[in-house]
């Protein structure tokens, strides 16, 4: 468990360092926002993988889970924008026996989570590359359902996240998007497997943005 956490932290650290190296050494001011946009808004669709940080989550649902997200950015001032959107995560898994096991007994599980993030993003343009860094809160609605038994659990919780990434402009209005997000969603809920589940983790995604 600790090793996994350390590994995740190391990877996150490395990605952050890389982004800032790009910022430091290869960056130059770009003229992207020198011309006024019709609307200071961009939308993006992305897909990627979510790596949960909770061991119990990994045990039940696996490590890399596919996710989709839609996001909106509203440019407040030259380098600062508000970020929001919707993230959808769905995964299937199997229950686990805790403690003594006398007979194999498994039930299929379905987990879904919708997250609405709200963050402040700082970005800077270097030619066609637009790296960004930000942080904020997320509102998360999640549901876990047992397939064969009428057991389901539903709740809502606030979480915190940090986001870092970069956009590569392939045209004036379209950009390719790559980003990493580190989130913590403490639920203060749990089961015999884990008393306090944190639904956070690390996400890596790629997508496409459109600037109005």
């Amino acid at each position, binding site marked *: 468990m*600790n090793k996994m956490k350390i590994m995740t*932290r190391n990877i*996150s*650290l490395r990605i*952050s360092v890389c982004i*800032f190296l790009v*910022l*430091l050494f290869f960056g130059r*001011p770009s003229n992207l926002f020198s011309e006024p946009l019709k609307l200071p808004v961009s939308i993006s669709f992305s897909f990627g993988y979510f790596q949960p940080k*909770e061991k*119990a*989550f990994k045990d*039940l649902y696996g490590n890399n889970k596919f996710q989709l997200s839609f996001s909106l950015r509203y440019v407040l001032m030259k380098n600062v924008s508000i970020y929001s959107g919707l993230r959808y995560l769905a995964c299937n*898994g199997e*229950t*686990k*026996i*805790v*403690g*003594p*096991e*006398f*007979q194999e*007994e*498994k*039930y299929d*599980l379905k*987990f879904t989570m919708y997250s609405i993030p709200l963050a402040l993003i700082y970005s*800077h343009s270097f030619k066609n590359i637009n790296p960004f*860094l930000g942080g904020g809160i997320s509102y998360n609605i999640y549901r*876990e359902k*047992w397939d064969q*038994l009428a*057991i*389901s*659990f539903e*709740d809502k919780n606030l979480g915190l996240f*940090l986001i870092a990434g970069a956009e590569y402009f392939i045209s004036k209005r379209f950009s390719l998007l790559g980003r990493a997000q*580190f989130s913590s969603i403490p*639920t203060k*809920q*749990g*089961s*015999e*497997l*884990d008393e306090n*589940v944190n639904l956070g983790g690390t996400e890596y995604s790629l997508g496409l943005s459109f600037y109005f």
Partner: protein
Amino acid sequence: MKHKRHKLFMLLSILVFLFFIHGLFPCSDETELTKIYKKSDSKTEIRSPIKRPLVSVETLSPRRELFSKSKIKNRFTRSDRTELIKIYKQRDASIDILYSPEVKIVQELRTCFIAHVKSGFSSNLSQAGFEFEHLDDDIKDKKYYLVYCPSSKELETLKYYGEVKLIEENSALFWSDNKEAREILPARFQIKRLPGDAIRSFKERSLVSAESFHPTITFPSRFVINPVISGIVNQVSKQNLTDYIQSLQDFQTRYASTSSCELAGDYIYDFFIQQGIDVEYDSFSFASSYSSNNIVGTVEGQVYPSQIVVICAHYDSDSDQPQTLAPGADDNASGTAAVMEAARIFANQSFDFTVKFICFSAEEWGLYGSEHYALEARQRGEDIIAVINLDMIAYTDSIPEDLDIISNPASEWLADRFFSTSITYTPLLNIFKMVNASVTYSDHSPFWDRGYSAILGIEDIPLSNPHYHTTNDTIDTLNLDFTTEVVKASLAIAADLAQPISTPQTPTGLTSRSQIISSLFSSIKTAFLNWDSNQDPVIGYNIYRTTTSHSDYQKLNSSPLVQTYYMDQNLDTETPHYYVLTAVDSLGNESNFSKEVADDEGNENTFTIEGRVPSRYVVRTILAIRKINPWI
């Protein structure tokens, strides 16, 4: 200019980034530990841990946290002194701390616990959410007693004899160095000596100061009038009871420590022998220089001899002239007579479970005899299902008199069972049920302390007999019609619990194991039950389940099960479940219940307490303790 601004922004970015990294990866454990040890080392005097900001420790990683917390605690709790404190029961407090090796609960009362606590540790109780009160700074070489104090006048009288602390409304803690309370206090005071070692009756539910004075009717789900039990009840003889009480009164005094008391013990022993039941002396010493005997008669169970039902009373007496005259007809020749009559009638019966008839000695000295027996029973791992203690069951201050049945919250099922069997077999007797863990002044209390279910049957709480502990407590002041009804009711419940042998034969070999299946937010439990095939021809078995041990059994199967196993799924993991089994023959007759098993009783768990597989919450508690102290 633009370039300068850009550089300034870069510098700012680096600073923000470093700040972010710093927040993401807090300072290393070693650095933090060093800080704490430096702090600790700089303080030479011993200070209360509450003054030390333990908060800083909480930022450590779990393993280091365990280590450093223990280190810090040890620094402040090195004193050898052990304090006596009163811990108030609080629903929202964390009970784990009470299982800590530094805390030894020696008495549970309705609203509080009395505990031995290592000096300096008590402040940790505050952190766990418990309010507490210091009773005595050092327990060394002292004997403590609970004393019933119904009025402030009595409390003032008590102060004349030694140290007194009011514990609850009618209970005071009394001590006078190492002196025996019975030897210095007037006979009218009811006393209980506090055990020197930890009790095991307290459980999570005990944090609620449960108290109930309303009788409830709880029939087992399969309750039918058993003609064998009716026959037993009908054999109770008022004349016999009169003779026994008279014989015991004729010893002049049965004050423990007198030879006359020992002769009374011998009389009971011989009586049991005459009935043809196994009997033994259970010898013990008390008050440093005295010894006495509990008299233990046994009718062994035919199917489950290890399951024991106890019917008991104390045979010693007290008065204001204890060495020469303490007739103790009501207190407690009446209860002893009930046990003797039970032995006489049960000697000719066969039961599934073992029945023990115990007459305790030295009750009046502070429950020495029953304390000795209950502790040894627990150490032997005796599976005592129920204890029915009868003390003062012959005086009536008003007609009709009712019998008060006293239980603690854990034994409430037994009080309800007494009530239900009583209205079935002895409808003339009125029962008043009281759930109050503070009624500790009789021989049921040491059984509560050791985690057994026990009830007290008594004519009145508070006591109404004006001859209590006087030389006037004689048979001519008693109402033996009332006693006869009480004995009938007591034998009815004892027989109901012990189960007279019937056909088809009671099934055996019931075992249960349970496993927990979990997702992220939900857990369920599955119990796997197995049992032996009946030797008698049967068409199947019925499985019953309850969440309250020994009562409210609900049948799980709609038709008799042909196989000898059953799987009970989708159970709540937080609730203990108990199972019993019956066999059904081709005529539709259903057997007695088998021995009751808890859902996890057969789990091969490495954690055991005194040879028993603990229920899951105990295991969790052990784990919680290990979190606090990794060396346990």
